[in-house]
């Protein structure tokens, strides 16, 4: 019965209007939600547990405000919720070291995470943590099968590969054919009362620091054309201006 950890992160709602205040993104009034790919990771972890038993522990790092994402995970079905108590910027090196230490301390055979967090979009944590612990890792899994072995469906050159995943391993999850379960209200109400296991972490120095944020150039205003012949211009702009072809 494997111990399963799922790493979850609280990020600004992907629909939120982003503004810059000084050198940083203005987070005031921005709704915080579980990073969408982490929802798939949590779903995968729960299915893994349902197939082979064990416990699912959701782990996040942050201040008290991050408890919400853990309670969401609890409502959906996580057995335990752990917050690594640290607020503020960490580079990947310091972050992964802290998480790897926590995973080792908690003990686990499988770690699930989203393929990337919706805020940074980096996707470094899963493979980085795996490397630090000397574990195998598969990334961007779009499907998982839990039989005698764990099989992950991952993109590979020329299609998808069904990959046999050894134990222990870190699996990062993409949006796949997994239908993410939603918490029922009883789960939400119970989760509200659930206690968060808050653990202090020792964090190392970061050699990368944020020095500024800016907004990307605004998308040009919509262009309007009369007559079918203009479709040729639009076709050209799709490639040259919009860069979507």
């Amino acid at each position: 019965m494997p111990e399963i950890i799922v790493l979850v992160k609280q990020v600004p709602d992907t629909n939120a209007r982003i503004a810059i205040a000084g050198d940083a993104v203005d987070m005031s009034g921005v709704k915080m939600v579980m990073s969408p790919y982490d929802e798939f990771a949590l779903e995968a972890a729960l299915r893994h547990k349902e197939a082979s038993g064990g416990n699912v522990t959701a782990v996040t790092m942050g201040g008290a405000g991050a408890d919400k994402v853990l309670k969401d995970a609890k409502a959906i079905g996580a057995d335990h919720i752990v917050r690594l108590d640290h607020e503020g910027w960490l580079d990947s090196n310091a972050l992964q070291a802290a998480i790897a230490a926590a995973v080792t301390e908690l003990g686990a055979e499988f770690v699930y995470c989203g393929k990337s967090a919706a805020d940074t979009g980096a996707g470094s944590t899963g493979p980085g943590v795996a490397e630090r612990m000397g574990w195998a890792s598969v990334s961007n899994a779009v499907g998982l099968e839990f039989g005698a072995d764990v099989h992950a469906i991952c993109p590979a050159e020329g299609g998808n590969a069904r990959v046999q995943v050894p134990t222990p391993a870190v699996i990062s999850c993409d949006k796949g054919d997994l239908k993410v379960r939603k918490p029922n209200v009883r789960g939400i109400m119970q989760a509200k009362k659930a206690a968060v296991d808050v653990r202090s972490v020792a964090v190392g120095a970061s050699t990368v620091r944020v020095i500024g944020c800016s907004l990307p150039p605004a998308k040009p205003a919509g262009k309007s054309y009369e007559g079918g012949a203009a479709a040729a211009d639009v076709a050209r702009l799709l490639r040259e201006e919009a860069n979507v072809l």
Partner: protein
Amino acid sequence: MSETVIIAETAGGVVAPSTAELVTAAVGMGTNPTVVVPCTDAGAANAAAFAGVARVIAAKSDVFAAYDAAAWAQAIDAVAPQGTVIALASARSKDMAARLAARRGLPVVQDVVAISGTQLTSPILSGKAMQTVEVEGTSVITIRANVFTAAESGGGPDVTVVDATGDVRTAVVEMMARASERLDVAEANIIVSGGRGMGDPSNFSHLETLADTIGAAVGASRAAVDTWDDIPHSMQVGQTGKTVNPNLYIAVGISGAIQHLAGMRSSKYIVAINKDADAPIFKHADYGIVASWEEALPVLTSTLSGMMS
């Protein structure tokens, strides 16, 4: 500036052209980079001898036959010199870069789109903001494709071949070819959708022709699905159909009522073709063409077809 090491991007055992963009980025940082080419056949590394490259190392190993993050990071780590490591921000290389950085105890900065000395800029929050970081010492960075111009090919140094090895942890059980049939709208990056303005369900064949030209999925508005039995519900985009956010959404003969907009308004670019200039879809379109689909669609299809070939 310490040494920079480029991990060449490969596809099908061949050095991908985007590797040349990494060379430009490295040269811009004030160094002549070493290019490490992960390969099973050292001959492939010859293609990495771009102008400005100081050294090409063919990291020859069986582990590079199929991707295994742990083994690749281990093998590349064994071969690549110390220094700032640069790779392409592709899904595979970002993964490898993260492991390599962790292996070397370095920070990794992903998706870089601008470099200014030791300052690196990447998009965050799905591109809604740009973040600039200052890097102290060496790091591993990945760079987005199509940002830097490609370095000239040829004129570079000879290739050094080094045998590498790594412990492959995962095993590919089987390859699953991508389904060749038309994409589902929920998964497609480009969608061509038709509404009641198409007049007749048989006219959706014109949308299919365009979709085939640009590798798109074909969608439909609810009005079209409701009106014509031939248009299946699985094609429906909108409030009670599928919610999509492709890079490009081409709406043909769709007025753009809220029920439809709710399902596609987060598309990155929207093209609207409608003969009614007052159709609400035009308020949301990046490129609006006031014309009947009979006029506009053939022009769009033929122009795009010319561009894609």
